[in-house]
């Protein structure tokens, strides 16, 4: 039987059943993960709440742009925002991205609480702002502002659109335009073009921090000292020096991914003692293998790229 012949009620019910199937199929892996993970899991209530909050915030911002030309809050369509949020939630790359950001937020808080590492103004940030090079100082100031904005937004479980990664923004825009009803499609397409014009990765939080790290050149090793650099700078420098995506680098700092952190820091050419210090700051109990330094940085970097995770990370980054 083809779908064209199906009655409306039939197709509605089919959709509902498919949705229910998806919900069921997702249970086992998540449950397995939560049960197996001892102590702090990569997925817990706090992470879920933050991801959901950011999903809703992103879709709210997108839908609000549609109503802007009309003006007034009345025009804002809450049902459409909910629909967009739901579809964003089904997009795996989007979820992975937001999960990493939620983890960044949580780890930043944890470091603040346990190791008194400032979520915003780290000693390295202060040094960079006071840099003799005016451009670096200005860049550091911009990055600092963006980082303050991020920390605040994380507390509210929000995420500004222009701070999304290009890949995430593109996916969100595509999902949004697809979910928009036909009558506002033209408006949505126009808004999409406008948003794309406004967006500049180099001015986003992660873009600014990456530029800052890049401008440090040889001094980048200072940013690989968590206590000195603060989590945001540390993660960007770590990602850059180990050739991983920033999202992957954040997750490496979770205690369940400690091997990735050790190998990654080796890829960034850190000595065992320095690697140990980062583990200590992150409060991850681990005994590092004695001859870790025998692992050549390029071999370590290659190990990170191997395997399904590495290739998935590369695909995500695109």
């Amino acid at each position, binding site marked *: 039987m083809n779908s064209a012949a199906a009655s409306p009620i039939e197709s509605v019910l089919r959709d509902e059943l498919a949705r229910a199937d998806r919900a069921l199929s997702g249970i086992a892996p998540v449950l397995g993960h939560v049960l197996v993970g001892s102590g702090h899991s990569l997925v817990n209530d706090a992470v879920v709440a933050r991801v959901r909050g950011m999903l809703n915030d992103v879709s709210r911002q997108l839908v609000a742009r549609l109503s802007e030309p009309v003006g007034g809050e009345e025009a804002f369509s809450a049902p459409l925002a909910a629909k967009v949020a739901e579809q964003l939630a089904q997009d795996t790359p989007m979820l992975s991205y937001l999960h990493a950001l939620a983890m960044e937020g949580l780890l930043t808080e944890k470091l603040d609480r346990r190791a008194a590492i400032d979520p915003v103004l780290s000693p390295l940030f202060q040094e960079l702002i006071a840099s003799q*090079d005016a451009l670096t100082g200005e860049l550091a100031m911009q990055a600092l502002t963006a980082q303050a904005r991020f920390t605040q937004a994380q507390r509210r479980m929000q995420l500004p659109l222009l701070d999304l990664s*290009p*890949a995430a923004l593109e996916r969100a825009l595509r999902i949004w335009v697809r979910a928009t009803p036909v009558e506002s499609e033209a408006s949505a397409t126009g808004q999409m073009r406008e948003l*794309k014009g406004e967006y500049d*990765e*180099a001015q986003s939080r992660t873009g600014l921090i*990456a*530029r800052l790290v*890049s401008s440090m050149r040889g001094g980048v090793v200072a940013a690989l000292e968590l206590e000195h650099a603060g989590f945001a700078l540390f993660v960007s420098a770590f990602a850059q020096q180990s050739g991983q995506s920033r999202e992957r680098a954040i997750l490496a700092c979770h205690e369940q991914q400690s091997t990735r952190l050790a190998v990654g820091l080796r890829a960034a050419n850190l000595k065992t003692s320095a690697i140990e210090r980062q583990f200590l700051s992150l409060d991850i109990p681990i005994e590092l293998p004695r001859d870790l330094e025998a692992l*050549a940085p390029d071999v370590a970097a290659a190990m990170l790229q191997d395997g399904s995770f590495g290739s998935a990370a590369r695909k995500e980054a695109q």
Partner: protein
Amino acid sequence: MERSTKPPTARGLTDGRDRLVTADDPLADLQKRCGGTLPGTLAVPELLEIVQQGRRMGLKISREFSAFDGDTLVSGFVRVHPLGLDEGEGCEVLIENWESRAAPEPNTRSVAQRLDMIDRACAEVVGRLDADQRVQIIQTSAADTVSFERVVAQKPNSVWSDHVTLEGMAPNRALHWRLLDGARCRIEGSNRPWRVRLLPIGGQSAAPRGFEMFLVADYPLNPQEAAPEEPDVELDHTRLIGAALTPVLKQPIARVIANAETIRARLAGPLRAEYSHYAGNIASAGQLLNGLLDDLADLEVVEAESFTTAREPVDLADAAQRAAGILGVRAQAKSIELVIGPSESVPQATGEFRRVLQILINLIGNAIAYSPENSVVTASFSHSSSEETLSVSVSDEGPGIDEEQVARVFDKYERLGRENDGGSGLGLYISSRLAQAMNGALAVANPGEEGATFRLTLPVYSEE
């Protein structure tokens, strides 16, 4: 303390097909060192990737990038700004924190390991030898190694070096593997030069249990080499001349001509008449060579798939007048009169003026060359309102072109039996291709008659 102020940024512009169009010095330099040209497709892989990505997403993106240009490691932070349709669909590329530093000295052991890995991956003949270098297994993967594999397989347990011709070494089966590793050789059935790799198996290199043997070719098998029965030399050959040699040859030839002219005119002092005459010959031979190069460069242009002409109104009579003006001296030398026929009430044609002029110079030039002295070359115009075409016919009083020749006259390199006048045999071929590119045609109007008439037909200009 001032920091050293290097150029903090480098800028470049790419087009809709990711070709770097303009670039600041450091970027242009990197592009060339990475094997690219300017303008030309971005040759720095990481930059190409990010530019493609930015263009596809239509987003301003930015990322750390690094590249190795052969000597130095270049790194920087690249920002890509995709440009709109009206700005050429390309990207503005901005590189901040440009830094180049010497590549780290790799340790020899890891370099050797890497080279082994590369050879392993590139080898098209792979074998396993026992401790006495006898072949146990051999596998090949190229079209020109099939017969070699067959020969070796027919003689199981033979020493591998019996089947190859080692260069610069006396055939000697007792050679130590270290001497053979890296040797160059030839194998049956292949024209390619090969390099031997022998890697010992088993921990001790003093007494290996066996060897991995690889034969690595110097270059990949060219599909043309695999199928030698249909060589496509013609195209390659013109491309070589047109693109590579023309600019290089033009200048020396121009100098030869200029110097020969100086001698011929006795500008540098008195000279015996026959030497002046020889110099005249050198000058005219140089002119011919020059024309030939122009033809070959044109040939390459008209044969390119992307070749198009502009669509503009062209006054055929004006073009013919100018062509006649350019060739006036040559006509006078043979006392030939150039008559440009009446052209009133002829509308304008569609085409590219430059190209029409090129065709007419070719046609009138040919007419002058093949006409007897004291004759007339005529250009006349006609308008067919039914077919909406215009034509210009160039007639001479020389020997005509018979039916059999008509079929060949527009072929490439066709000289119709005139071997010694220095022509390239490309002029009419190029003209005819140009006419076709302008939706027109070039034909012989009076096959078999005395005095050749060539007719160029073009569509009437209309504003669409």
